[in-house]
């Protein structure tokens, strides 16, 4: 139960980080924090409901996080090569 509380707090912290960080990498880092908070919630719920399925889902989350990080960081590197920055406030050309 307390770990659900921890998960909620971490999730909120991650959201705060996503909003305040301006470097793409750090935004990404905060997203990982939120993802992890979700995994934590799943694991504690697995405990509370007695279902292993939730743990399996967490495994998948971790696998997907790996894939996502690979692609995401790849994108960041590619953008950095072109624009010499990873500041998302400066990267506004996508808006049109």
């Amino acid at each position: 139960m307390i770990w659900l509380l921890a998960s909620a707090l971490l999730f909120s912290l991650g959201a705060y980080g996503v909003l305040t960080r301006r470097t793409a990498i750090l935004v990404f880092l905060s997203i990982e924090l939120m993802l992890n908070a979700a995994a934590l919630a799943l694991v504690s719920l697995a405990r509370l409901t007695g279902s292993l399925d939730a743990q399996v889902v967490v495994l998948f989350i971790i696998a997907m996080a790996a894939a996502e990080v690979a692609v995401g960081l790849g994108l960041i590197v590619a953008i950095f090569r072109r624009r010499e920055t990873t500041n998302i406030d400066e990267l506004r050309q996508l808006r049109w």
Partner: protein
Amino acid sequence: MQETVLLPLIVALPLLGFVLLGLWGRRIGEPAAGWLASFLVLGSFLLGFWLLLQGGAKWTLAEWLPGIPFSLRLDNLSGVMLMVVSGVGFLIHLWAIGYMHGDAGYSRFFSYFNLFIAAMLVLVLGDSLPVVFIGWEGVGLASYLLIGFWYTERVNADSARKAFIVNRIGDLGFLLAMGLLWSMFGTLSISELVEKVEAGGYSFTTLSLAGFFLLIGAIGKSAQVPLMVWLPDAMAGPTPVSALIHAATMVTAGVYLLVRHAFILHGDAFLAGSIVALGLLTAFYGALCSLGQWDIKRIVAYTTLSQLGFMFVAVGVGAYWVAIFHIVTHAFFKALMFMTSGSVIHALGGEQDVRQMGGMRKHLPITHRHGLVAALASGGLPPLAGFWSKDAILAYTFEYGPWLWALMLLASALAALYSIRWYVLVFLGEYRGKAHPHESPPVMLWPNHILMGGALGVGFIGLPYVIDYKNFLEPFLSKAIGEFPHEKLPVWTEWTLIIVSALVAIGVLLWGFRFFQQPLPQWYARFQQAALNGFYVDMLYNTLLVNPLKALAELLFSADRGLLGGFAGLGSLMGGLGGLLARLEAGALRLYLLGFLLALVLLLLWGVLR
């Protein structure tokens, strides 16, 4: 009174002429077009006369508009008017065959002329107010077209427009009267209105208002003060137009309308007073203006104004049949007067200034005879037509109030004066112009002969009761107008009035006959200057009404642009708001995320609280 389809035929005949001449006028050609038009009008006259002898007729097309029939009705009142319109109209048509000879728009002229007769007959015969209104506006249209007949001259086109617009003011009164009567009684059929008004059960003041609206309509059409300004300008049209429309028939339509609605007006002191006052003003205004004019047609036009004033006074004092009587006699002598003027103009090759005339007695002996009779009848010399009808009016005004009688006597003295002035300036003295006068062709003389006969003798259909105890016209008309009993004057009073009126007419005619042959005194020249300009009423209207209204139109026009600007302002306000919103979408990713977060919070909140 029979239901017959011949009645619309009376209207259809001249209308047919309008259509035929309008479509194929040029092919029909010069004399034929005129004769065709004339005989169609004669056909209407004969048909109408025959139906009148049958005791009247009516024709109805029910539910022409919801609740409003298209109904025509030939009773004694409309019968008399029908006789005048088609009879005098026929004569003027004939005369115009000669007068319009050689004009480029010959067939167009007769086509319009027939349109006028058709519209006037609808006006006269209509039994349902909207039908009357069709004729009412129809004659207005014909008048507009004919005043502006020579429309390439700007003045003519302006005059035509002015006539139409001023008439429209009166038409508004007519329209409002219809609205009011409909809301009061739920019918616009005159014969039904008579019954409903008799039945009672309505507010008397409201009915009075309806009468007032009708009066406004009549003022416009009959050119009474203050809407008289269009009539003198209407002389821009060809002379037959002036004779037919602006003297004999159309301008009397207002009087006819009031007489037709005598059942509304009767016994309403306010309306009666207004009508008398307006008529009196018009009688004096017309007479005084006429004394100052130099244009022969404007002289006669103002005399028409004055005579119309007489008719209004007659209506006002409740002498409805007398008003019609005066319409009849006036139609004859005024048409004669106009056509004599026209013959003179024709003889002088278009000259209209009386200062370039004179001495026509020698050059145009036959026309001179017509002119003399016209002037004397108009001046009220006994026993010509004008005397009897004017005397009848005077007798009734004496019943209304001796002061009114005195004023009217003065007005009729002025009438005698302007008639003799016209005669003297045109026919006596030496010829002052340069053209070579020539007598008119027979086609112009014969109608004048007939009209002269009328101007001499038509007064005998309505002699005072002291001479002919049962005169013909009064009981004949009363069948249609309604019986409005009044106390007859004592015999000796009546005789006194007749003699006084005759003496005044003779005296003034004689005095004027000498006065206008001598050089005019200084005071008269000054008066003449003011009278020439119609006492500056036109100028007054222009400065007080027309120009401000035009300026206001300009102002409103730019204001309307401003209105659009206002909406545009509203638009840019919205645009500004949109701009503000657009700045939210300026690519600040984290701001979008904030919105995302807030939405998430709200959604979760909803989920949690539900």
